[in-house]
């Protein structure tokens, strides 16, 4: 009867193994890994961009609207500025605004959404009404109007404006989610244990909203980035010497770069935006699969049978790997 120790030992040993698996799972999804890599690239570029740019992005030269060359990798503008340097230096503003606005909007939507979802009474009702009012008002025009109210727009103010106006959708989603969570037994159980309300909201409810919060955050970042760029593009925010991809597009469009045939001026910034968006959505995949056990396919959706066929794993038709009798039942 010395065997029970065997039973005991195995799970104990399994604990660190499990923890490791959990942390690596995120990377295990190839989509998320690619997204993470791309995102890291953009963030690094945001930090070091202005230092590694070959030229001062605003500096004029005599090379007017020149096609890409060794000296100017992405050609030049009508003022002889280096497009590549503008792109590289502009990354910072884009990332800053995107992340900052994302954080602001996420925090606001958490505050409003979760609170109005968990609490009841007039306060909660008016919070929910508030978010509905914000939903009704179209965000982009509102942002355009507010930014045109501001005498001067820096990255931070743009981020603030975007963040302060784009939280409502998230709040609504979170509220709906919270409503379904708040009568869950474990929340009631925490209450019955004697937890304080704010602790219940922060420690019992919010962790269960991680998936929603995360995808919401990423969605807001994408929205913020496109908004910032759109604002710059329509000339609402091209302030200072602060370059961002939208400013590049603004100038390119103002000078009708495409009609002039200066594709190098217009195309790269747009592609950069698309890539950033893709990086974020790929990250989103990873987070989905990470947080929601249902989406977790262990990365595999196809299996190989013993006789070499590939079968898709799917609900309703369990794949059969091997047939018939095996000689050795062990």
């Amino acid at each position, binding site marked *: 009867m010395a065997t029970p120790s065997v039973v*005991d030992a195995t*799970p*104990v040993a399994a*604990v660190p193994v*499990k923890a490791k698996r959990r942390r690596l799972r995120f990377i295990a999804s190839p989509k998320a890994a690619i997204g993470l890599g791309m995102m890291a690239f953009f963030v690094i570029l945001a930090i070091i961009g202005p230092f590694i740019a070959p030229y001062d992005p605003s500096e004029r030269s005599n090379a007017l609207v020149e096609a890409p060359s060794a000296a100017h990798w992405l050609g030049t503008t009508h003022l002889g500025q280096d497009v590549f340097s503008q792109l590289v230096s502009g990354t910072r503003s884009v990332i800053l605004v995107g992340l900052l606005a994302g954080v602001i909007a996420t925090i606001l939507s958490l505050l409003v959404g979760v609170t109005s979802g968990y609490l009841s009474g007039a306060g909660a009702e008016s919070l929910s009404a508030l978010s509905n009012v914000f939903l009704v008002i179209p965000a982009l025009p509102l942002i355009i109007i507010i930014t045109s109210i501001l005498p001067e727009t820096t990255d931070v103010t743009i981020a603030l404006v975007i963040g302060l106006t784009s939280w409502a959708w998230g709040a609504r989603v979170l509220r709906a989610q919270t409503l379904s969570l708040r009568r*869950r*037994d*474990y*929340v*009631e*159980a*925490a*209450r*019955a*244990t*004697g*937890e*304080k*309300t704010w602790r219940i909201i922060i*420690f*019992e409810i919010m*962790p*269960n909203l*991680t998936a929603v919060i995360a995808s919401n955050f990423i969605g807001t970042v994408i929205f913020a980035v496109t908004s910032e760029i759109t604002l710059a593009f329509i000339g609402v925010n091209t302030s200072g010497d602060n370059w961002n991809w939208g400013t590049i597009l603004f100038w390119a469009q103002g000078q009708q770069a495409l009609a002039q045939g200066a594709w190098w001026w217009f195309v790269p910034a747009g592609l950069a935006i698309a890539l950033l968006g893709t990086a974020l959505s790929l990250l989103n995949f990873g987070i989905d699969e990470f947080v929601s056990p249902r989406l977790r396919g262990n990365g595999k959706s196809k299996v190989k049978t013993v006789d070499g066929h590939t079968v898709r794993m799917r609900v309703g038709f369990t794949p059969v790997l091997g047939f018939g009798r095996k000689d050795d039942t062990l």
Partner: protein
Amino acid sequence: MTASGMKASASETTEVVLEADGLTKHFPVRKRGREVFSKVSRVVRAVDDVSLTLRRGRVTALVGESGSGKSTVARLLAQLYDRTAGDIKLHGESVSVKSGKRFRAYSRRVQMIFQDPFASLNPVHTVRYHLTRALKIHDRAGKTKEDLEKALEALLTRVQLTPPERYIDKFPHELSGGQRQRVAIARALGADPEALLADEPVSMLDVSIRLGVLNLLRDLKERLNLAILYITHDIASARYFADETIVMYAGRIVEGGDSETVTQRPAHPYTQLLIDSAPDPDQIAAHSASEKDRGTGEPPSLINPPAGCRFHPRCPHVMDRCRTELPPRFEIGDGPGHFAACWLYADGQATSESSGTGPGSSDGRARSGEHA
């Protein structure tokens, strides 16, 4: 049997911890279609006029059909729901707390184990978190880390999750149903309560694990002098585990008394139905033939409950009176505190003190009628 008899006699003397008096809970239901403009608001009468007492060192079982309001009673007692009417007394003092400090003070003394162990543990937190919180909230975590560690270990050991370090850092989904249930119990015990409201703590477990949990509760009751409310569908376990059994039907208490008496000599026709329906491997032959004669039919709607006795549409002994008048509790003299809310015992009321024949015979009549 003797043991339970001894306890029963002790019950008169042991201290009442928690007492419900005329507890009532109505859930509002949303109006449908054309009712929108009418004034009448509809409610689910989940619990109606329920009175019970929980005493120190005693287990009270609450059985009844599904949807009869057992869980609602437990949640009302835990002050998780606002009650519609009635009173809850803790040590004789009426309490009504919704949240805040007073609620926490109350929750320290009255703890609840939720029906579903899969739902009542937060999937994102480890066992350690759950238990630590329970200890910290009620200032039982001690001052240092070691104190806390020791307290956690003690808790886990108490619910037989040994060795503690094997379970302490696990997430709920890494535990089996029985283990979760025991974590939930440990959490409730973390507050060191005086009363424990255990809502079907074993319903999802296989018999061997079920037994382990029940033995643990009994042990706790005896060692810590807890007052326990044990809600279950498993009447057999009520017989084994509880000192006192109360039967609910459609939001009302229909019978109550000493467990052995209630399970062996059920008085109320519903209880009889319940006991008869319980599967019994020893009596395979005896059944099978008589299924048809059993009172069948649907459980009543709680929105428009039947007038009079709520069981009357299904009752094999239904009388005119049952259809109109709500039966009060009638004492039945065959066991300590045995009562039933049934007009069958109305006549016995006058004579109940003098002899047990009235109820006894009616009991016999009911049973023989069934098995004939």
